[in-house]
Structure formats: C-alpha cells, structure tokens
C-alpha cells in the first residue's frame, strides 16, 4: 500500500514519488537484476510455472501423437477450449503495445514505468496464444501449408480464409512487438553492462546492448527509430484482434456472423489486457517495493481505461442482443435465447457479472486507487473475458441451424492441461524476465526525474 494516504480529490497523483535522483532510480531497478541473491518467492513462482510447462509439454505430446480427439471437440462443436484460449491470450497481448505505442504517441508520461513489463507480458501472451492454433490442427505437421511458399504441389494457401489472415496478423504483431520491446531495452542493457560486476553478465548484456554508448547521435537515432516503430505498431493494436474477430464474423454461424465483432473484440482485448497488467503490476510493486515507480496514479489510470473499454464491451453485448431481436431472424433469435437460457445459460450470466457488473465498482473514485479492489476486479475481468470467448465459440456452435445436428460440448483433461500449461509458461517467462532484465525502463524513469525537477523549479 502507498506510503502516504493518497490525495484522491484531484488528479495530482504523481507518476513518480518525489525524492528520487538518477542514481537512486538506477540503483533500485538494476539491483533487482544484478543482485546475487534471488528472493525465495521468485523460486517458488518460477518453480510452479516450470512444473506447469512440463504439464503443457506432456499434453501437447499426447495430442500430437495420439490425436486431436483427446480434446473435447466434436461435431457440431469442432472448436473448443483451444480456440477460446487462443483468443483470450491474444486479447491479453494487446495492452503492451497499446501502452507503449499509442500512449507514447499521446505523450502519456504515466506509461513510462509500466510499459516495459507490459510489453514483455504482450510477447509472452502472444507466444502462449500461438501454441493453440497449431496443436489444435488435425495434422499440425502440415501447418506450414498455411504459408505461401514455392511448393511442388503447384498450389498456394486459400487467401479468402480468415485463418490465413490470422497467420500474417499474429506473426507480424509478434515481430513488431518484439522489436519494439528490444529497442526500448537497449539503453538499459547498456546500463546493466556498465554496472554488472561479473564478466559473463557484462559480456552478455554488452552483446545485447549492441555497443550503445549513449552518445547524442545514438539518442537521436534511437528516438526517431522508437517513434517510427510506435507509429508502425499502433495500427497493429487494432488490426490483430480485428482479424481474429474475422475468424468468427466471416462465418455464418448465428452468434458469430456479426458486423459488430471487430470493434467489440478490440475493446475486449484492451479490457482484458489492462486487467492482466494490473494483475501482474499490483503484486510486483509490492514484492519488489516499487510503489514509488508504479504509483497509485498508474493504477488509477489503468482502472479508468478498464472502465472505459469495459463499457464498450457492455455496449457490444447489448447490441448483440438487440440485433438478434431486431433482425427478426429465427436462428439469431434462438441463438440469443439459447445463449441466455439454454444449457450453457449460467455461463452467460456469470460472464455478465464478471465483465459488466463487478467492474462498475470502478466508478467509485476511492476504489480506483485501492490496489486490493483493483486486483480483485482485474482477476474477475480475466475470468469474465475467458467466459465471453467460451460463450461465443462453443455456445454458438452447439445449436446452429439443424436441430438434428445439435450437440453438447465439454472440455477434457487435456483441454484443461494445455490451458493451465500455457499459464505456467506465461508465469515462468515473466519471472525469468523479471530476474534477467530491468522490468521498469530505467532511462525513461530518469527522464521523469528530470521533468520533476523542471516542474519544481
């Protein structure tokens, strides 16, 4: 919890608690990486993550060697948990680039202490997401057929299929996010190189720093490159989940075939993204005592972003229901009734509770800066957003056009295993990152100090 009772009446919460100098910041942040002693909670968290990764590997091996039938998928519900998880992870992967790129372009200072690990989170989330479309193929070993390459078959992918668009959208997004993240790291890597005492770390950080010396020329090029990448990344934030939403919107399944999907998916993605950032940031600032850098101002802003996007999502739900009624289409109407009161109805109401009702608490200003409340809400939204995807994917499919083909779907132990496994992968990667790289951008924090001084004068 913050050191002093926050003044929440006005928006003057600082983005950096006062009293910090260049040195204090550099010490504080780099020490987390360069310290010889790794804290116990790190071992525990990473250990858990690692075990889950082993589970993930086991499940993947089983599914690939025995058959996709180990998952619960069937006819009519031929997409299940795997696709739900894919969309969920991709969604989470949105906050990072949004914070880094868009907020950068918008000159939002408060981004500077959270962008680094938000970006890292993005990368890891997308990595987790990438696993699913692959292993959920009937014949994953032929996945490369989705790429255009000169083949002896004389045929190419079928470019009308949204799945092909996915391949490009997701891979581009991952590449750009990676570059952006790495570019942002370079000056800090140099710092670590210079502060590292032992030879090996110095060498490795040195290699990664690519000879950064912080000369004026470097800074000049750096800034322009960073700005360019930001410009490049910004459209991606919108495009990726738009394309993902096409996987559904392009199909004619009632509950999928809807023009509202792109905006409503993007909003949902940012929603869940910020939820995940909070889920991570709140414990981290506590564990590593970073309250000075990740201040209540950050939490408050993120809470507000969540509230805003959450309302957009709510509008999406409302519109879906309205359109189902307004279209007068018998299939759409039945789909919506079935979604609310069918065999899976309870899922829908839980999702409404988690995604729409609970976050309304954020209207209360005092709660916007209460880490515990925020943490709880963030968790609720994470779950809610997963349920939303489940409702869209499964509940739409299980009763479509011909009653004769209706069926029920449920995941299997392997579905659960792979999902939990990817969460483990995410955690493991995150803690590796925290241990090996500065989780907060050192040089950008230094800029903040500079501005603080400028302001105080």
């Amino acid at each position: 919890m913050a050191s002093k009772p926050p003044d929440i009446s006005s928006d003057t919460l600082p983005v950096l608690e006062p009293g910090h100098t260049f040195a204090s910041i550099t010490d504080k942040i780099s020490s987390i990486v360069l310290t010889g002693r790794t804290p116990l909670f790190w071992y525990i968290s990473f250990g858990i993550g690692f075990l889950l990764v082993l589970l993930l590997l086991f499940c993947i091996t089983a599914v690939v060697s025995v058959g996709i039938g180990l998952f619960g998928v069937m006819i009519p519900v031929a997409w299940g948990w795997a696709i739900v998880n894919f969309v969920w992870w991709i969604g989470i992967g949105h906050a990072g680039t949004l914070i880094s790129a868009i907020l950068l372009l918008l000159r939002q200072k408060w981004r500077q202490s959270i962008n680094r690990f938000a970006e890292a989170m993005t990368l890891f989330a997308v990595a987790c997401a990438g696993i699913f479309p692959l292993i959920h193929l009937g014949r994953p070993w032929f996945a490369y057929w989705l790429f255009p390459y000169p083949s002896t078959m004389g045929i190419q992918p079928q470019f009308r299929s949204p799945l092909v668009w996915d391949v490009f959208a997701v891979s581009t997004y991952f590449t750009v996010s990676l570059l952006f993240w790495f570019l942002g790291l370079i000056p800090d890597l140099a710092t670590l190189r210079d502060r590292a005492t032992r030879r090996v770390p110095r060498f490795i950080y040195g290699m990664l720093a690519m000879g950064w010396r912080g000369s004026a020329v470097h800074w000049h090029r750096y800034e322009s490159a960073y700005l360019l990448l930001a410009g490049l990344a910004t459209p991606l934030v919108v495009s990726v989940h738009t394309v993902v939403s096409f996987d559904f919107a392009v199909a004619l399944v009632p509950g999928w075939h809807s023009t509202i999907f792109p905006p409503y998916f993007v909003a949902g993605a940012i929603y869940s993204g910020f939820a995940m950032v909070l889920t991570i940031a709140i414990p981290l600032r506590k564990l590593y005592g970073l309250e000075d850098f990740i201040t209540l101002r950050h939490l408050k802003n993120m809470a507000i972003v969540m509230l805003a996007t959450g309302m957009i999502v709510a509008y999406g739900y409302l519109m879906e229901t309205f359109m189902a009624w307004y279209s007068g289409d018998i299939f759409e109407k039945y789909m919506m009734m079935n979604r609310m009161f069918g065999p899976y109805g309870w899922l829908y109401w839980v999702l409404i509770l988690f995604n729409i009702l609970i976050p309304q608490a954020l209207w209360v200003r005092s709660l916007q800066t209460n880490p515990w409340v925020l943490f709880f809400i963030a968790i609720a939204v994470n779950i809610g957003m997963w349920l939303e995807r489940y409702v869209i994917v499964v509940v739409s499919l299980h009763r479509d056009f011909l009653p004769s083909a209706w069926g029920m779907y449920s995941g299997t132990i392997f579905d659960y295993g792979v999902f939990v496994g990817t969460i483990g992968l995410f955690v493991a990667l995150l803690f590796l990152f925290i241990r090996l790289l500065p989780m907060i951008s050192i040089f950008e924090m230094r800029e903040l100090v500079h501005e603080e001084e400028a302001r105080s004068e």
Partner: protein
Amino acid sequence: MSNGTEPANLPEASQPTAGGREYWRSLEELAGTEAFKALMGNHLPRHAAAWTSAMDRREFLKLMGASLALAGVSGCLSPAPAPPDEKIVPYVNQPEEIVPGKPLYFATAIPAEGYGRGILVESHMGRPTKVEGNPQHPASLGATDAGTQASVLGLYDPDRSRVISNAGRVATWDAFFSALNAELESQRVSQGAGLRILTETVTSPTLAAQLQEILRIFPKAKWHQFDGGAGDYAQQGARMAFGQPLETFYRLEDADVIVSLDGDFLLRSPASLRYAREFINRRRIPGTSSEANRLYMIESTFSLTGSNADHRLAISPSAIPQLATTLAARLGVQISAQQPAISPAHEKWLGALVKDLQAHRGRSAIMPGEYQPAIVHALAHAMNDALGNIGKTVFYTDPVAVNATNHAESLRELVQDLEDNAAQVLIMLGGNPAYTAPADVDFPSHLVTSNFNVHLSLYEDETSALCHWHIPQAHYLESWSDVRAYDGTVTIMQPLIAPLYGGRTAHEILAALAGQAERSSYEIVRDYWRGQSKEKNFDAAWRTALHDGFVAGSAFSPRNVKPKPAAGFDASALKERSSGAAVKAQNEPSIEVIYRPDPSVLDGRFANNGWLQELPKPLTKLTWDNAVLMSPATAAKLGITYQVGGTGGEHGTIYADVVELEYDGRRTRGPGWIVPGHADDCVTIHLGYGRRRAGRVGTNLGFNANALRTLDTLWHGTSIAIRKTGAQYALACTQFHHLMEGRDLVRAGTIDGYHKNPKFLRERESEKEAPATLYPGYKYDGYAWGMSIDVNACIGCNACVAACHAENNGPVVGKKEVLRGREMHWIRVDRYHRGDPSNPETYYQPVPCMQCENAPCELVCPVGATTHSQEGLNDMVYNRCVGTRYCSNNCPYKVRRFNFFLYSDFKTESLKLLRNPDVTVRSRGVMEKCTYCVQRINQAKIAAEKDDRAVHDGEIETACQQACPTRAIIFGNINDPQSQVSQLKAQPLSYGLLTELNTRPRTTYQAKLRNPNPEIENG
C-alpha cells in the same frame, strides 16, 4: 457395457485383450500377405480337380486375384506416399476375364433370414467389395437393405471362426468325418432314432432334398427348425383359414387402401424391398395417374412402417386381436367369438376405416404382422376374402419355406427329446440356439446332455462353446448354394471368393451325414439342378441362371383358394392371447412386453458387424445398444426419465434410467427409452443384444432380452414387472432432438392439398430472389451434378447410410466416440416428429452433403482442401486437409465428419481386402464428407469420353441412390434440362434446405405429402 471395443484403434482399444492377442496371432497365420497366399495355394488342388467346369475355373482365378490384390492393397491404401521399394506382383497366368484395375460383377443372392434376395456383387481383382441389388430379381428390384450392404463386412470379419474344433481343440475335417461316422454307425442300427438336425428357416431346394435324403437313410431321425427372428404364425394362420400352409404375398401397386395389423412390411418381410417400392410408387409426385394409396396402421410398438402410415392406432398388443375381430365383423366376416366393446375414439377411427375399405373393395389389402397370433392372420385372410381382394391384391402360393413348422413347438420337442436323452446326435446347421432360445427351455444345459453334437456357424458363439464339434461355416459370398425368394423364385448362389477361413456349407455337412464327405457344395448344388432340369442343354441353362442371378420361371404360380368360413376359426386362440393369463406380479402396474428383432442386428446374428451396430436405428437413432422402449405416458407412470449428457448431448450421450424387468421370476436390467407414438402400458424390447461370445465388436453390448422370454410368450407377454432402479446408463444416440423448432426443414402438405393447388408450397414460402453475393458465379459448360431427394418417398430404412459407408470405406468409431458425437456417416437420415407426442407424425430426411453453389466450407479452408470443382461439386481433398475443422463449423448442414483419431483400420489384413480401391482410406486428422460418389462420376466420365459420347442420364448412380428401395434419391446432370433430376427440381414440390442462407444447395428435396382420411383428420 461401454467397452465399445472399437475396431478403430483408439488408445483405449489398443491394449489387446486375451481374445485379442489370440486373434492377432492367428491372423498372422491366416491373413499375413505371404501366409494368406499360401492358404490360397492350398485350395488349388481341390479346384484344379474340377478344372473342366467354367465356374470352378473362375473361382480358382479369384483366388489368384485375391492373392495378387493382397500385395496390391497394402501399398495403395497407405495415405502417405508409398515406400520407394514397393513391389508390383503380376499374375503368372492372367485370366482373360480380369483386367487389372477394372471391377467385375457377379450375380448371386443373400439368404436374408432364409429368404433370398437377388444381388450383384462388385469384385475387384477377386475381392468382393460391394453388394448391389439385382434389378431383375423380384425381391430386390435393384435395391438392397442395410443388412445386405453390411454383409460384405461380415465376410471379412477377422473374428469369424477359422478352424474346425473338437471340444476346444483344433481338429481336421477328416477327424470330424470319422468321428461322425462312428456316431452314425450306432444310429444306423436304430434307424437314426437318436439323430436330430436343427436348422433355421430353409428355402433352399438343394438343402431340402438333402434333408429328405437323410430322413430316408435315417427314417426315425427328426428335423427341427428354430429361427431366432422368425414369427411363424403365418403358416398356422393359413392352416386355420385354408386348412393348408400357404405363403401370402401382396401386390401393393394395386392397393388403394392398406391396413397393416402390426405388420412392419416395409422393413421386416422377405418382400420388404418390393413392398416399399410398390407402396411408394403409389404416392410419388409426379406419379401414376391413379389416386394415391392410404396406409392405416394398427400396432403397439412404433415400427418403421407405422411411422410411414397416414393413420396410426397405437394400442396394446393384447388389444390388437380384439380390434381385428371387430374390424372383421364390421367387414361382414361371420365370427363365433363375441365382439369386445371398443372405446369411442377407436370407434370413430374404425368407422372411417371400414368405410374407406368398403369403398375400395378389391383395391385394398389387410396385412397381418408376422408376430401376430394365428387368429389374426386367419381373420386377415377372411377380411381380404370379404373385400374381394384375393386374386387382385392378395395372392397365395405354396409355402416357400420348406416344411414350415411352428418353430416354438419344434424347439420344445427337441428340448424334450434331449431331456429324455432320446436325442443323442444333434447336428445344428447355423443358428445360435444357445443364445436365441427363450430362457424357460434352458437350451444350453440340455444341449450339453447329448452325447454328440455339431455346430456349423460363422462364429465360435455361445452355442459353439457348448458343442463337441464346431465347424466354421462358409459365408454366403463364399458358398455354392441356392435359395428361394418370397415368391419362390430360385437363385443359384455362387461364391465370389474361396472360403477365407476354410469354412464349410450346410450342404457339405449333410453330404457328410449321407456318407459323402468329399463332395463339394458346387457338385451337390449342380447335381441337384441337373436332376431337376428338363432342359436339353443343362450347361447353358445353368450358365444363364448364374449370369442372371435367378432361375427364370421358378416362381410359384398363385393358387386359387378360398378361406373357410371364419366361424370355424379356433377363437380360443384369441381368448388365450387377449386375456393376460400369464403370472401377474403383485402391486406393479400391469405392463405388457413386446419382443422384436433389432432393426439392425436382428436376433443377434449381425451382432459383430460394426457397420450395423453403428447404424442409428430408424426411429430411436440409438447405436450400439438396445433399450426398453415405452411411450411418454408409460414412462411418466413408471417415473422413467432421461438426462442429456454434457458431452455429446443430443448428438451423442443420453443418460437413461435403468429399469429392472421381471417376468416369470426371471430378471434383467436395461435402460428405459421414451418413444413418442409407442402404445401405452406396454414396452418393446429388441433382441440381439447381451451377446456373450459374439466377437470383439458385438460382445457385451446392451442386455439380453432372451433371458426374459418363454416359449409361450416369444413375441408378446402380458404383465411384466418393471421397476426403476435409480441407476443411469449412457446410451449413444445420434439424434435425440426430434422437434424442428419452427424451422422449415421438412416441408409437408397433403395430397389433396397438392391436387387442389400444386404450388401451395412455393406460395407458402414468400418467393424471394437469391440474395446478392460478392463472389462471381461459376460457369459450367460441361456437366453440373445435382441431386433431388424425395422426402415423400423416404421411409427411413437406413439402406442409403449403410451403402454409403460400404462404398466410401467408412470407418467404425465405436460407442465411446458416438457418445461424443463423432460418428462418421456421410449421409444421415434426420428424424423429426410433429404433433401429439402420444401419436406423432414422423418425417424422415436424408441429409448428405448439399454441394452448395456458394459453399460456406470452401472459403474458410485456409489450405484449399475443399474447393469448387468444374462440375459444381465441393471437392474434399483428404491429403491436403490439415484439420482446422473450420469448414465443419461453417457448414450449416453439419454433414462434414472428422477423423479425430485414426479411425480407419490400417492393420487388419482381412479388412484391407474389403476396401473400395477407388476411394482413399482417410487417415487421422482429416475432414471427410460426401462427394456424390465422385469416384463413380469419374469412372463414368472416362468411359464416356473413351467412346466420345456424353454421360447419359441415369448412367451414374450414387451409392445411396442405388441402394434406396423406393428410389427416393435421384442424381444427375442439372445442366441437361431433360435429365430426371432437372425435371424433379422443376417440380413445384421441390425445395432447398436453408436456402435463406444463400448457400444455394445442389441437393434439393421434394416435399412430404400425407394422404389422411378427411373423416379422421377433421374430427
């Protein structure tokens, strides 16, 4: 129960059971490519001996063909590119008939429960792979039923018994022959007083002659008959009415009004295929100018025929004879027995029926059900006489079944003799009495008392296990024999392949009894017919008969007979039957029980046939199980409910309440199943399940109804006790949901309505032009294939489903997978109910791939594995598919099937012989679906191109179309306005499924037209 013992090698199934291991070992012996060829070799001498005869020479060539094929298929089935050093194994002497790569067709017949049905069998390099109907044969007319289609799988079933065994030890034919002779020596002395022969229904003239011969040699020997599925009351009925056994058959094309007294003549009759054709021909639109026929059904269990009736009266079985009496009386039949009173509701119904019948004297038919007591049959004869139908729509011939006896009595005598130790030598030719015999006779324990018994059968089943000698039986596709059809038409059955497992025929066993063990069944059958033949040139006649698939002019001519006055009927039979005299369990609701052969596996003889087990039963859509069928009201009374499973659900798992049944102190348990339209206060149980020694597929499925049956209540028992146990049991049901949810899926009207305004359908659906589409339309300058399915003609018999599976190498996935909703049928028959749950209207709708013009599946496939062909098919390229399953999600008809596991059996050698070499055997992880049998299309096109002509209309028949008994499915070129399919699509009754989605399906439907009696309908 749930150990569905899948042939598909799922992980669960892959651990071999004890039986399984044994099976692998012996399989190596018998079907390992080299060993198999060796086995073939062993047969050569026997056939080389009969070299002079053309037939045996051909058979010999088959063997060579098969051995070649074995080498061939192993390579060409593998979905992956073949290994670099694959071998080609040519003939040493190439037979002139065989052109490698081209199938041959041979005519024979399948003995369906004794009665023959003409078939043509497709043979690839000596491997019979597919059965089609023989268009010239009166009982087939070119159609087949599901059982016939699946019989090929039965031929290659690796679980068939392979060795002669004596008390469980492997023995030889010679050993058997000497042992038999030893026994017969003693019998000769006593003139065979201790010799008993047990057969199923026999129609084979040769076999009959042989039996007569045996009875001549052993005058005191006895021939018994017991057939697990045969209701034998028809003969008693005939005796009652005519004083002599007679066979009845009907000419439904001349019948305007048909009344069935619990007769499921569309499914369970030696002439069912013909009846179905004639019945539907009179309802087809556009059809004959004459008025459409009307079917009244009076039954208890909801039968396939009942579901096709215009009017249906569901009453308890004991009430049917009463109602029959009343009906007879109303039709002017003089009856001694007083008429029981009937309810006003029935009164009105019956009144309308009688009026309708009176209005169609000589153009109506009363058809008694095979399981109705003799009196009902007798009354039916009397009624047909009173209505002047005899000689017009109803015909009588000499009995087709040889020496037709009352099977129940016959079995009773046999068991009695066994008990008194009068029967010492028992020869059982086929059948499985140890399983099929009712519980009260306790056949097994009596069987073991005889001092020498022999069992000839396809499998080492429950009976074989108790016998001293088990002889593997030759499958009908491996046998020389002959059989009569419902009208007496004889077919000489010729083998398509030499016995895979060295099986013997009944002819050979009887020859052995007569002391001629060395005679081959070929000689026996041929010699018999040589004896019968009046032809100068017998060989020519013989060849013609074999070629045509039937002996011309061998049908019995109708007899001119008249029933005795009905007053003479033994009405006591009626009394005994209707007054539930059987033991009545106290404080239990009085429930009657009906036993019927299962629609798929009959009395259990097909229990090990995976195709039939997985075939959804016509009305219940259950697979892999039998159940206790009851009406909603009865279920409510007994507190029987169900629960839709969380996995699979309506398309897979239904948890049904398990009930305990008690009758005469015997008990068994089975899941209760609610059937709308079933009569109240009675339950139906299908036989053929609960097998203990059926094979890997059929063992321990469902529950055994024979455990309840008694000889007196073979098909119907009164006051059975039913208790809910509280346990639940998972049933694999492929379509539980039976409502259309207000969607315009099956469109229906009445024939009167149609005649008043043929366009009523088009007008009902607001005629809107097809919505716009972004994609440019396709151009078809050559052919454009299309299909029209007449919902009005579909009786829901499943023949198309089985035929499609056989033609397209469909895999069997097993119960576990069906429970998950993963069955692999490319065409399914959707069943919908409408109206009053106690007596609903039923609609069947076969749903294959629609081959949409704007196919949703095509544009979502990322790798172009499903694409639009130049002739408008949605091609499915298995080898390009990566398995995203997006196409299935986007298919509004959900006709796509996915290989979630490696369902196809790539291991079992004998099953490789079964495959259609023109269709890829799909591997794990690929989507598959109907392609209008594109292999047949391509073959026809190539043939046409080679003689520089166009494919003419009707030249290509899809597998489903070819099998359909009622010709409900028509396929052809819709670019040709003259083609039959184009004509049909131009009909006002033609409509597309879900056209509002702008998929523009190539497969369209003809609306269903009922022909209700206005008096009953508007009251």
